């Protein structure tokens, strides 16, 4: 499988990354080498091997259900571009 320039543009748009045609072309070549690597790995016979969700055979440690955080919104909001009534203000986006 290899990517077309349109695929690259679409992926960039989904990730909200602005790309020029030249960048898209360069990225396309780089991404395709990654796809080649994936293709090489897919040639390995993995029949009978359960897929893993993580590189190591370890499991998630769990936290007890307890409130341990305190209110630090003043510190967090000190670096926010715009704040009002305790809310973060962002450009209007309505879905």
């Amino acid at each position: 499988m290899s990517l077309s320039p349109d695929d690259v543009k679409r992926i960039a748009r989904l990730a909200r990354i602005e790309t020029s045609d030249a960048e898209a072309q360069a990225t396309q070549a780089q991404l395709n080498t990654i796809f080649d690597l994936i293709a090489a790995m897919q040639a390995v016979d993995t029949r009978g091997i359960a897929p893993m969700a993580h590189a190591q055979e370890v499991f998630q440690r769990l936290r007890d259900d307890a409130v341990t955080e305190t209110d630090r919104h003043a510190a967090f909001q000190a670096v926010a571009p715009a704040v009002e009534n305790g809310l973060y203000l962002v450009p209007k986006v309505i879905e």
Partner: protein
Amino acid sequence: MKWETVIGLEVHTQLATRSKIFSGSSTAFGAAPNTQASAVDIALPGVLPVLNKGAVECAIKFGLAIGATLNRVNVFDRKNYFYPDLPKGYQISQLAKPIVEGGALKIVVPSTDSGQSEDKVVHLTRAHLEEDAGKSLHEDFHGMTGIDLNRAGTPLLEIVSEPEMRSSAEAVAYARALHTLVTWIGICDGNMQEGSFRVDANVSVRPVGQAEFGTRREIKNLNSFKFLQQAIDYEVHWQIETLEDGGRIEQATVLFDPDTGETRMMRSKEDAHDYRYFPDPDLLPVKLDEPWIEAVRAALPELPAAMQARFQNDYGVSVYDATVLTGSRALADYFEGVARACGQGKLAANWVMGELSAALNKAELDIAQSPVSATQLGTLIARIQDGTLSGKLAKQVFEGLWEGAGEVDAIIEARGLKQMSDTGELEKIVDEVLAANPKSVEEFRAGKEKAFNALVGQVMKASRGKANPAQVNELLKARLQ
């Protein structure tokens, strides 16, 4: 053409944990904006999620309660999309290996036509853990949107049914049964106004007999059973009309507007999201070990379905009554308290679902706030059973209990509500009534049944409601033979 409706529901239940699913922030509702949003919840760089054991346990409880498969190893994935109330740019969810798969829920669908209720089993596809997003406030902030991230990271269990419901009534019955179950086992507070139980409905129609499904539209975010029913009814009507007019249905996400009662398109399939799911590298697979599962199983309360069967067996109530009485744990416990106190299951059910429910509704009270205790109501019913009270007098005693006038026997005594037991006294009244109403007597003898009822009414009136109606019937019949 005859059409068949096909409905599947996705329900987001907010889990009743103290802290969030991946951080130690509080999940309490109604706090000032952003005061319960930690570095993890607002996605500061370098932070890592740590999974809440309580949230996992809620999912285990649910899986056990519906007889589902618990995936001993389950995995969290990233669901990628951009929206300002999702600070990480992805939601942590479960796609390929959810914690719960399969299972089933028994529902009872009340039928409007026959008055008979119908049993049905709805199968579940899956239930998975995920985090909630924050809230966007689009009021006027100089043309900008305000973001409150208190809700971001609140644990949710998304419960997905198979497309097995065939009417809005079935969808509502399923949603209600699910609501009862999650509150019953204590994993969700069930508060629909606060968004703790939100329903998405996938709706399609197809000609009766057609095997494949029609194209579905998804109605998002319904937060009451009434809206769920209205939205589905409107949507089904709209889809059938569109198809009969020669149009076709396009896959879409729609919103229901309670003010107009209509659904409108939010986005079509063309601009549907491409979420680019992949396993979250920040979280390891979750392992459920057998001792944990067995401990959770042992701590589960008796479930609604088991209790319904027991109520039918032990107390002789109908399927429908058993379903209503197990609408919540508080109600079920109350009913059982009444039934035990009086030893009359059917009468107890009638009083709890009739007089008591009506009074509670009128006063806008919950069963837990009932001014009349289960023991008091049980005693009252016992007094009907032993002949002390007629049904009518019992209602007066009930009013006394409701007003807090004391215990059953004290109210009967104080208000002189005891049913007349002296036959001689009653015979006297009957004779007086017969003498005073020769016309009714004549009519009855001429074959008019109604006249008999008029005479019973007169006797009851003369006894000021204290005569035993069965006794009155008997005496009157004897005299008129």
